């Protein structure tokens, strides 16, 4: 037996080109909407043009006579058979959940809600037939403003089954929790108290692939293909919602064109398509148009944040008091109520705040429901704290960076337990900040800023800071339990060394563009000492990957990746027993390196993993009692969240005469723990920055007074194009996580979380000489110009 290794270098840390790319760049893709099945029917959905109304009559019979139409139904036809769409996060014991039908039966509560559905041979025929449906509405008062919605005597969104528009009030108080001081004491003893209101405008996740679902009846069950982030959770939820035994539901997420949280919930369309396929006994497909997507796929953010910070005159922060109003829209979606609660733990960010209080009211309005959007609660929290730190610095006449340095957790203080009770395992805020300041040339930019202020240049320079941390790797199951979340936070993996030595890895972390196949292959290649090309990653199908909790909250690597490591280690241990048997040596005398076991001190006596796999396959000569085949499963429940951090700096030119703002330099130094694939990390950061900058400058979902979404197409909802964005300078520091064996943290949401406050701080910094203390997002030229004029923002 020989020791063979053709792998000269470590895979982890290498900028490997992606395995995923080949079929995507050649167009040989498996988007759900590509699916064509024999006898498949196409669905079209009639959607409410009213934000709030009773359905007084509906007649779909004429649609049934249209060419190609096989069936047409209204919500009444499903009144008895449709369950409520699931909400898995009842954040308080008394949270009010009015229920959410997949198709409205008697009342509509937001524009775009499904009221009727047609199945036809072609999509065009189905859409044509929608015009034949007759429906009468009796308008109800729209409820758009959260504060008005909570006022006494307010019109109710759900008048039949709620007594107010408040879904819940969730409270955290560090004094009561025993994790810090009382906010009341901080307020009464403060030398400086500063209060601000920030508006987190409503955003639309805007994944590029519109949602699509194909449901095939199979015996008593269904095979569901869906553009979803959560095939495993969807399987369980469809079973519960539609009443199909879970083992008769198979969900496949084929190629999925982006998610950003927008493909997390169990959607009305998925449930309705399942109901239709079962009723008609034929495969049914529904693919949304972009307008439908913008109207009805959930929205994100939409919070009013009232923040009070208390401090000493020397800049030491003594407390933070947060009151949120969080717009749930018309219904509670899968994790919607929990989104602001995730943020609750991040308002103290990287700072040592002695006291903290957080109160959030979840509010119903007659608008599209909200749910997770990239970062989910944490971008909102980071925005508020980084904005008010700048305002506090201005109030105290301090440099905003010095104020941050005075209050942050120092490198030598880790592990550090925060005022929220989280324990940050590692971090180095000084190192990341110093590197970012150096890269952007901060001091020279400050000098230039002073000169331009001095000469009253119409184009002023603004410098914005955002330091941040986030909690990734959602999440230790016990913690989720303590927050009343309806599932665990573990992830599953299987590692199988095949007879030929090739390796199959099954992961429950289903991907939608992040590069899992490449990063996971790198991890396995190193762990098992096999070539990168010999590793195949299997995911996104509940039949081949039966266990999992899917992908959100930057959990793939720090939870899913660790599950893979655990499974690989089990394989190695089994292989060690086989190797000892084959080499007639003691297990303790074997060392495993570069894919081979060898007897210590006698390198000529060794056996490669592939040979062991073949021996385990033939099973001719295994240790007594050993099961044949070389494979193993693992389920990993993280011991802690992971806490990536970073410092983002933005230099922006603001034309005070036109309101135009243009980012001149954007530098970020992120610390995501040990890097697996630097190229993928950089790509994730770039994409995150684009989304965070877009919140600061471009994007907002706007409703008119009647509750119509006036930003219902990409003409009106301004996704940034290439010419709207600068090139970014990215760099890293590395503080390995001490809570997992790879030392990894997570990167998917970092760019989005950090960039929004960096850009807004930069614009406010440019305009502070004009008396400007805030500019509401998105900071359009008009809003900036009005701020300069001192008018309404």
């Amino acid at each position, binding site marked *: 037996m020989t020791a063979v290794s053709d792998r000269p270098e470590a895979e982890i840390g290498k900028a490997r*080109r*992606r395995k*995923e*790319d*080949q079929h*995507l*760049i*050649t*167009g*040989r*893709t498996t*988007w759900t*909407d*590509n699916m064509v099945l024999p006898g498949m029917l196409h669905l079209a959905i009639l959607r409410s043009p009213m934000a709030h109304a009773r359905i007084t009559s509906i007649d779909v019979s004429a649609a049934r006579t249209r060419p190609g139409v096989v069936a047409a139904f209204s919500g009444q036809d499903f009144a008895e058979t449709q369950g409520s769409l699931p909400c898995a996060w009842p954040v308080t014991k008394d949270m009010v959940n009015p229920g959410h039908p997949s198709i409205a039966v008697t009342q509509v509560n937001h524009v775009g809600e499904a009221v009727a559905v047609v199945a036809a041979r072609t999509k*065009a025929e189905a859409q044509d037939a929608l015009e034949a449906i007759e429906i009468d509405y009796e308008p109800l008062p729209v409820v758009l403003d959260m504060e008005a919605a909570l006022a006494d005597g307010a019109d109710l969104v759900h008048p039949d089954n709620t007594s107010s528009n408040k879904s819940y009030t969730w409270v955290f108080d560090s004094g009561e929790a025993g994790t810090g001081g009382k906010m009341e004491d901080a307020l009464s003893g403060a030398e400086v108290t500063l209060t601000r209101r920030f508006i987190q405008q409503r955003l639309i996740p*805007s*994944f*590029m*692939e*519109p949602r699509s679902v194909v449901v095939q009846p199979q015996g008593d069950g269904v095979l569901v293909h869906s553009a979803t982030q959560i095939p495993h959770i969807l399987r369980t939820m469809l079973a519960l919602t539609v009443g199909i035994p879970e083992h008769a539901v198979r969900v496949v997420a084929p*190629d*999925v*064109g*982006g998610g*950003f949280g927008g493909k997390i919930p169990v959607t009305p369309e998925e449930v309705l398509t399942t109901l239709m396929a079962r009723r008609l006994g034929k495969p049914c497909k529904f693919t949304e*148009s*972009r*307008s439908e997507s913008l109207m009805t796929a959930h929205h994100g953010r939409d919070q009013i944040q009232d923040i009070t910070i208390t401090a000493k005159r020397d800049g030491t922060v003594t407390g933070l008091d947060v009151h949120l109003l969080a717009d749930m829209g018309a219904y509670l979606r899968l994790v919607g109520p929990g989104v602001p609660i995730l943020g609750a733990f991040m308002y103290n960010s990287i700072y040592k705040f002695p006291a903290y209080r957080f109160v959030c009211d979840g509010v119903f309005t007659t608008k599209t429901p909200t749910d997770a959007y990239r970062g989910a609660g944490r971008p909102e929290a980071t925005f508020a704290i980084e904005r008010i730190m700048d305002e506090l610095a201005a109030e105290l006449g301090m440099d905003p960076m010095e104020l941050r340095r005075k209050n942050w957790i120092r490198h030598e203080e880790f592990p550090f337990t925060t005022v929220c009770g989280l324990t940050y395992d590692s971090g180095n805020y000084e190192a990341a900040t110093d590197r970012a300041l150096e890269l952007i040339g901060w001091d020279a930019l400050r000098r230039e800023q002073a000169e331009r202020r001095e000469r009253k240049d119409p184009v002023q320079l603004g410098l914005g800071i955002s330091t941040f941390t986030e909690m990734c790797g959602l999440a230790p199951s016990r913690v989720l339990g303590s927050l009343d979340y309806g599932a665990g936070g573990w992830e599953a993996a299987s590692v199988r060394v095949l007879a030929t030595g090739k390796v199959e890895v099954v992961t429950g972390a289903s991907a*939608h*563009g*992040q*590069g899992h196949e490449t990063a996971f292959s790198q991890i396995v290649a190193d762990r098992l000492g096999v070539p990168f090309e010999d590793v195949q990653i299997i995911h996104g199908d509940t039949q081949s990957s039966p266990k999992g909790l899917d992908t959100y909250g930057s959990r793939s690597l720090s939870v899913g990746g660790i599950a893979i490591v655990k499974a690989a280690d089990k394989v190695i241990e089994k292989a060690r027993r086989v190797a000892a048997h084959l080499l007639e040596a003691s297990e303790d005398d074997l060392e495993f390196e570069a894919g081979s076991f060898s007897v210590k001190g006698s390198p000529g006596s060794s056996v490669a993993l592939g040979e062991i796999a073949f021996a385990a396959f033939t099973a001719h000569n295994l240790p007594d009692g050993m099961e044949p085949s070389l494979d193993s499963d693992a389920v990993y429940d993280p011991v802690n969240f992971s806490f990536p951090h970073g410092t983002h700096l933005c230099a922006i030119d603001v034309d005070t005469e036109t309101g135009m703002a243009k980012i001149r330099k954007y530098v970020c130094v992120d610390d995501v723990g040990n890097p697996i694939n630097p*190229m*993928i990390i*950089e*790509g*994730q*950061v*770039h*994409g*995150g*920055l*684009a*989304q965070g900058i877009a919140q600061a400058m471009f994007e907002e979902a706007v409703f008119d007074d009647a509750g119509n979404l006036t930003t219902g*197409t*990409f*003409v009106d909802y301004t*996704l940034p*194009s*290439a*010419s*709207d*964005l600068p*090139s*970014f300078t990215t760099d890293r520091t590395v503080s390995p996580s001490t809570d997992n064996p790879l030392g990894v943290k997570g990167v998917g949401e970092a*760019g989005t979380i950090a960039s929004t406050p960096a850009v807004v701080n930069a614009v406010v910094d440019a305009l502070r000489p004009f008396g400007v203390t805030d500019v509401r997002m998105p900071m359009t030229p008009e809003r900036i110009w009005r701020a300069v004029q001192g008018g309404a923002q």
Partner: protein
Amino acid sequence: MTKINVTVDGVSYHDDVEPRTLLVHYLREQVGKVGTVVGCDTSNCGACTVDLDGLSVKSCTVLAVQADGSEVTTVEGLAGTDGLDPMQQAFHDNHALQCGFCTPGMIMAARDLLRHNPHPSEEEIREGIEGNLCRCTGYQNIVRAVQAAAGAAAGAAAGAGAAS
């Protein structure tokens, strides 16, 4: 129904289409070229970009009947037996895609850009692809890919010049 005769990725098709059929739907549903995708209904996203007789078009703005007698190239027609198109290779090398949904249109638009301006500046590239939306990459690596493809083309031309 109207009869049309279209060459798609080098293969000739004679088909009956409804006059209202958009080229993108014809390509996807009748020809089976599902690499070309639909991302919006307002011609903003560019995911459906293809070549029509040497011109880059958003195939959701062209009726199938308008393509009668034309030659269409989709992303599926780029890679041959001798390997990837240089722009496809550049996208792969520069990590210019994540979810990949916008990628076919982006590659087609980027090729067209270089056809008309073989040596674009970064600003010209950003303007040149602003009709194609991407939500994943922040565009930076797409810009790099286009620069790399332009460099590769220039290098190939220089090499050819030296050989002749």
